[in-house]
C-alpha cells in the first residue's frame, strides 16, 4: 500500500486527494494542514466579509470529503523539512512522516515589504486566510476608516468585502493603476472608476512610506489617518521546504507538466509553484485557483502511478467588484495585435499573435467568455475559425463545423 503525504490543505491538496483516488483507492493519504479548517478556497474570505457566504458554506467539499477519500488530515501542524533521500518529512511537533510520494501544496504567504513604523500600528492585518478575515471582521466597526495597502486582487476584494461595514476605505498602491497584474491602463481605469463610484478612495502611484500609530504618511507626502490597516501588497510562494531539501526553486517551486519537482517522488502544486504558461511561453508563478486544483489533480494521478499532464496552463482571472465583472486570460505579449470594442460600460480587448488568440481582457459583459479562453488554451489557429464573428460575440457558430459537431453531437 502506497503512502501519500500532502503538505498543505488548500484546493491543490484537495485536487491531489481526488487525483490520487481516481487512480488508487487503497493507498494511505496523510494531509498536513497548518490551518485548523477543512479545505476552503482562500478567495472566498472577501465574500465572507460581504456575507455572500459563511464559514459553513465556504467548505470546498462536503463534510465527509476526507472520510470518503480515506484521507487522514492532521490539523494545526506544519511540515518543517523534507528528507528526500530518506523519503520522509519532518513536522514541527518533532515527528516524522515517511512517504512514498509527496505533494507540496504549501501555497503562498503575504509579502510585506519593510515599512517604517509599521510596528506602531495596532490594527494591522494581512488578508489571506479565514483567520485573517475573522480578525479583520472583529476589528472593524461602522465608524472604521480602513487603509488597504495594495490595489491588487486581494486588496480590492478586501475593499469590496468591507464595503458597507466601515465608514471609509482608502486603497493605495505603488502602481499607477488598479489590478496592475491583470489589467492594462484603460481597463484598470474603468474598473477604478467603478470602484470609486462605489465609495472606494484610491491613492495610486504612491504607497505608505511610514506609519505612526493610526496615521500613514504616503510617499507623495499625503497623510492618511486610519483605524484599520490591511496589508495586501502581494504574496510570495512558500518554497522554502523544497528549496531546503535541494529542490529547484525560482519564484516558485519549479514543476513540470506532470507537476513533478526535481526531487524524486516529490510533487508540488498550487500557488507555491512556478510552471509553464503557454500563452506567453514562459515559466511563471500563476497563483490561480483553477490551476491549483488542476495541478493538484495532475500531481495526484501521477503520484498514484497514473499518467496525467497539465500542459495547457494559462493565467486567467475572473473577478468582479460591485457588480462589474472582469475576465482576463492569457497574456498580452509585446507586438501582439489587439482587437478592441468598448463603450462606457464595457471593454473587450482581444490579443492576437502569430494567428492565435493569446489573451483577452473583458470588463462588463461576461457572456460565454470561456469560448475565448478555450481558443487560447487549445492554441486554435484563427484561420480555422470565423474570427470576425468571434470578435463580436463568443459563439460556437464561429468555430469549425467539425468542432461544433464534436461538441454538440457527441460526448466531450
Amino acid at each position: 500500500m502506497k503512502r501519500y503525504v500532502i503538505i498543505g490543505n488548500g484546493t491543490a491538496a484537495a485536487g491531489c486527494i481526488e487525483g490520487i483516488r481516481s487512480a488508487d483507492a487503497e493507498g494511505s493519504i496523510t494531509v498536513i494542514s497548518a490551518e485548523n479548517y477543512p479545505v476552503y478556497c482562500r478567495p472566498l474570505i472577501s465574500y465572507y466579509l460581504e456575507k455572500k457566504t459563511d464559514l459553513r458554506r465556504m467548505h470546498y467539499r462536503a463534510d465527509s470529503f476526507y472520510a470518503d477519500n480515506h484521507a487522514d488530515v492532521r490539523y494545526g501542524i506544519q511540515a518543517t523539512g523534507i528528507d528526500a533521500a530518506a523519503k520522509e518529512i519532518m513536522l514541527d511537533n518533532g515527528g516524522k512522516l515517511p512517504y512514498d510520494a509527496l505533494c507540496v501544496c504549501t501555497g503562498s504567504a503575504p509579502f510585506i515589504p519593510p515599512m517604517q513604523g509599521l510596528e506602531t500600528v495596532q490594527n494591522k492585518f494581512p488578508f489571506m486566510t479565514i483567520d485573517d478575515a475573522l480578525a479583520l471582521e472583529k476589528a472593524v466597526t461602522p465608524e472604521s476608516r480602513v487603509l488597504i495597502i495594495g490595489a491588487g486582487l486581494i486588496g480590492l476584494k478586501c475593499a469590496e468585502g468591507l464595503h458597507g461595514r466601515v465608514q471609509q476605505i482608502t486603497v493605495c498602491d505603488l502602481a499607477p493603476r488598479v489590478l496592475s497584474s491583470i489589467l492594462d491602463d484603460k481597463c484598470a481605469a474603468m474598473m477604478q472608476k467603478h470602484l470609486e463610484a462605489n465609495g472606494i478612495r484610491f491613492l495610486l502611484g504612491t504607497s505608505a512610506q511610514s506609519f505612526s500609530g493610526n496615521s500613514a504618511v504616503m510617499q507623495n507626502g499625503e497623510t492618511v489617518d486610519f483605524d484599520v490597516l490591511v496589508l495586501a501588497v502581494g504574496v510570495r510562494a512558500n518554497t522554502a521546504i523544497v528549496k531546503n531539501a535541494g529542490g529547484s526553486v525560482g519564484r516558485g517551486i519549479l514543476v513540470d507538466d506532470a507537476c513533478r519537482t526535481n526531487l524524486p517522488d516529490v510533487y508540488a502544486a498550487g500557488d507555491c509553484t512556478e510552471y509553464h504558461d503557454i500563452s506567453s511561453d514562459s515559466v511563471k508563478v500563476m497563483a490561480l485557483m483553477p490551476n491549483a486544483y488542476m495541478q493538484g489533480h495532475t500531481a495526484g494521478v501521477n503520484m498514484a502511478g497514473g499518467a496525467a499532464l497539465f500542459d495547457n496552463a494559462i493565467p486567467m482571472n475572473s473577478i468582479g467588484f460591485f457588480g462589474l465583472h472582469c475576465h482576463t486570460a492569457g497574456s498580452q505579449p509585446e507586438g501582439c495585435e489587439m482587437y478592441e470594442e468598448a463603450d462606457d460600460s464595457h471593454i473587450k480587448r482581444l490579443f492576437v499573435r502569430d494567428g492565435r488568440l493569446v489573451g483577452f481582457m473583458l470588463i462588463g459583459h461576461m457572456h460565454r467568455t470561456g469560448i475565448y479562453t478555450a481558443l487560447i488554451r487549445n492554441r486554435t489557429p484563427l484561420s480555422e475559425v470565423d474570427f470576425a464573428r468571434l470578435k463580436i460575440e463568443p459563439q460556437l457558430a464561429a468555430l469549425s463545423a467539425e468542432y461544433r459537431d464534436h461538441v454538440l453531437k457527441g460526448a466531450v
Partner: protein
Amino acid sequence: MKRIYVKEQWCLGCHLCEYNCAFANSGMTDMVKALRGKQIYPRIQVETGADGVTYAVSCRHCTDPLCVKSCIAGALSKKDGVIEIDHEKCVGCLTCVLVCPYGAVIEDGSGVAQKCELCMKNSCGAPACVKGCPNGAIVYEERGEAK
C-alpha cells in the same frame, strides 16, 4: 449517460427552447407569470451560424469538466454524470463562465452562475427544452462517453 444533443438539421431557430428553459427553471407554474415582461436567462441558447444554420447549446456535462475543477466555492460538482451547481455555495465569481469552453455556464442576471442541470432539479422531470422543441432538434439520449 443521457445527455442533451442537438440536431442542427432540424433546428428552426424558433428559440422556444430558451423560453421553455427559463420557464422550467423559474419555479413558477404559469409561463406568463414567469416570463412576461422579464429578461430571460435561459440555460440553453440558440446560436445562428453564418450559413443561417441554427442550433441550441447547453451544458455538455463534460467527462473532464473544467467548470467543476475551477469553481472556487466548490459549488459545482458532477454527480451521476450530471454537473450540478449548488446555488447556496456559489458566490458569483463567474470563474466557471471564464473556463467553460462551450459557453454553457452563464450568469443568471443576479450575479450568480447557472447552467443546464437537465431539469433534474425542477418539476419538469425531463429536459424542458427537449420536450418543448417542436421539431425534434434537441434530443435527450444515450450516445456513449467521450474517450
